């Protein structure tokens, strides 16, 4: 007899089953609406496009920043420079003395063919003659001469690239004629005293933060005229904004595979996170920021289900019945016994979860000895964009619903920073990562991963 027969086929075909209160027409329509609403977000091409646009924007922003900064930061910043302390009489005295002692200037003036310069006015104005440009040029030559000597001193103090920058800065600065005309520092004798500059440089304090050298603070209070101190800076105004791109991977093993357990799982899980952040430096070593993150989370392994069953076993025996005056007969005796049988079922199990999150990040930069290190943590809520397979824990596994589910991730990192240039920093990040997704019935499925990440940090 074949099972099922037509009767049962019809019965089974037309059978109905009740569903729980979790299922309803409204929920189906709600799921459909969400699916339509997030169709844009569910498309992987959307993420690729967004990523390209974001990177393009970032590159454009960085490029503009470089161009903008190069115009500004190449200039030596002179703080509070004005001529309020340069009283006309005193200034004239200085100029007179300078004109007597400084043969270089005399030569310069001689070669310029200047007829007359007016130093008697309250403000430094030069005669409007056709030779005015020649005078300025001569002063520039002299200025550059002294500045180059100064730069040699700087380079001798192993300031390397900064010294080069200083030189170029100063050269650029010379073109700002009116400002230097007001400062008139080349007209002060002490300014040309190299030994004093040596002392100043020796006592100068380097300005440095955890991202590298920023400049020297020169004390110029010993100069005769009361020119305010100014700082040699290599960036006009260091930006407090940073962009960070990081990649991190981690793993987690689930090894509970014993025969005496009804259900056991042996599996390995891996995760990778790709993160882009915009951070703001709050100048006390702390940074806060936010961004976008794409995570991949996969797991694979084996499950084993052990069950002890009492399996019915029928033992049949053929018995010969031999009675007097009767023909021989055979009888079949059946004896049913229940045999304890251990059944072990095994199978392969795996799952994959992709998600997009929006991390809120905190970073704290400090140093251990001379090694700059960074502590970081972030919390990133998000949504799954792709789920497939069966999620497993140490003693259980269940299918993951295909609908989008909320996720919450966390991460703690501590690792060294390696400044590459003044604006780019490389960070290694040993990490502890928490990944989770929350099912519609508010069940949290989470795992901790240990891993290693790398990050590149750019200061705008």
């Amino acid at each position, binding site marked *: 007899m074949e099972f*099922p027969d037509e009767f049962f086929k019809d019965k089974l*075909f037309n059978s109905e089953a009740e*569903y729980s209160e979790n299922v309803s027409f409204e929920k189906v329509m709600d799921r459909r609406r969400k699916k339509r609403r997030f169709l844009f977000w569910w498309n992987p091409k959307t993420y690729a496009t967004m990523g390209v646009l974001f990177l393009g924007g970032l590159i454009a922003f960085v490029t503009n920043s470089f161009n903008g900064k190069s115009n500004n930061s190449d200039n030596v910043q002179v703080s509070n420079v004005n001529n309020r302390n340069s009283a006309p009489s005193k200034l004239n005295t200085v100029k007179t003395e300078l004109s007597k002692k400084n043969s270089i200037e005399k030569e310069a003036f001689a070669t310029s063919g200047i007829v007359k310069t007016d130093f008697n006015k309250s403000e430094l104005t030069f005669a409007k003659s056709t030779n005015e440009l020649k005078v300025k040029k001569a002063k520039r030559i002299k200025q550059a001469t002294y500045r180059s000597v100064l730069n040699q001193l700087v380079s001798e103090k192993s300031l390397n690239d900064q010294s080069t920058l200083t030189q170029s800065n100063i050269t650029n600065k010379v073109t700002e004629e009116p400002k230097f005309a007001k400062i008139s520092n080349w007209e002060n004798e002490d300014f040309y005293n190299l030994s004093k500059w040596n002392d100043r440089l020796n006592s100068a304090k380097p300005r440095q933060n955890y991202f590298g050298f920023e400049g020297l603070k020169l004390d110029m209070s010993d100069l005769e005229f009361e020119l305010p101190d100014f700082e040699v800076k290599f960036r006009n105004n260091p930006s407090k904004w940073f962009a960070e791109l990081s990649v991190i991977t981690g793993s987690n093993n689930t090894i509970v595979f014993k025969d005496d357990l009804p259900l056991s799982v042996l599996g390995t899980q891996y995760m990778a996170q790709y993160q882009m952040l915009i951070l703001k430096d709050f100048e006390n070593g702390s940074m806060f920021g936010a961004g976008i993150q794409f995570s991949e989370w996969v797991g694979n392994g084996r499950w084993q289900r052990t069950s002890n069953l009492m399996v019915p076993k029928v033992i049949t025996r053929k018995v010969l019945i031999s009675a007097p005056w009767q023909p021989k007969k055979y009888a079949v005796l059946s004896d049913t016994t229940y045999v304890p049988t251990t059944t072990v079922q095994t199978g392969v199990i795996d799952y994959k979860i992709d998600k997009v999150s929006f991390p809120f990040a905190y970073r704290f930069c400090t140093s251990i000895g001379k090694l700059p290190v960074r502590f970081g943590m972030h919390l990133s809520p998000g949504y799954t964009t792709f789920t497939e397979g069966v999620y497993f824990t140490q003693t259980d596994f269940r299918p993951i619903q295909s609908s989008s589910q909320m996720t919450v991730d966390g991460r703690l990192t501590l690792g060294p920073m390696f400044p590459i240039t003044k604006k780019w920093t490389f960070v290694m990040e040993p990490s502890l990562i928490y990944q989770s997704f929350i099912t519609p019935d508010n069940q949290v499925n989470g795992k901790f991963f240990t891993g290693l990440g790398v990050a590149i940090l750019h200061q705008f």
Partner: protein
Amino acid sequence: MTEKELVEGCIREDRECQRLLWEKYSKKLMALCLRYCQNQEEAEDALMEAFVKIYDKLGDFRFQSSLETWMRRVAVNISINKIRARKNIFKEISESEYEIGYSDFSFDRLNVDQINQLIEKLPVGYRMVFNLYAVEGFSHKEIGEMLNIDEGTSRSQLAKSRKALQAMLNGLNLGRA
């Protein structure tokens, strides 16, 4: 309301038609999903996913078969996709687990629920092939295409599932005799 009017109403996004479709077929499809899926939760998820797809794709329905057959096919495909993700569908079960001698069991003694319970106890691969062939009426060729297996595998899975079912039935029969 005829079947065609119902479909056209659903295509027009008429809420009442959509609700009518749900009320008419949801329990049948739930029974179908339950026969394929591993548990109630998975079956309910498959049911909702199936209806989302049905509402979205009703425009593609060409009335070449009955609406119910088309909807069942959608639900079967979604259930199969869910099971396929588990990758352990066609695990070979040792035949010794169902060691049994004979059978003269009368199926009339069982009701549909009991039969369903027995089917649920089958391993996933057996259950799928059994449901597709014996209940839904697909051929081995169609089953092979749906499950991406060859016809021979489908036949052997069906034979094993029948044997396993008979073993379970005989176990029940012995208990009653």
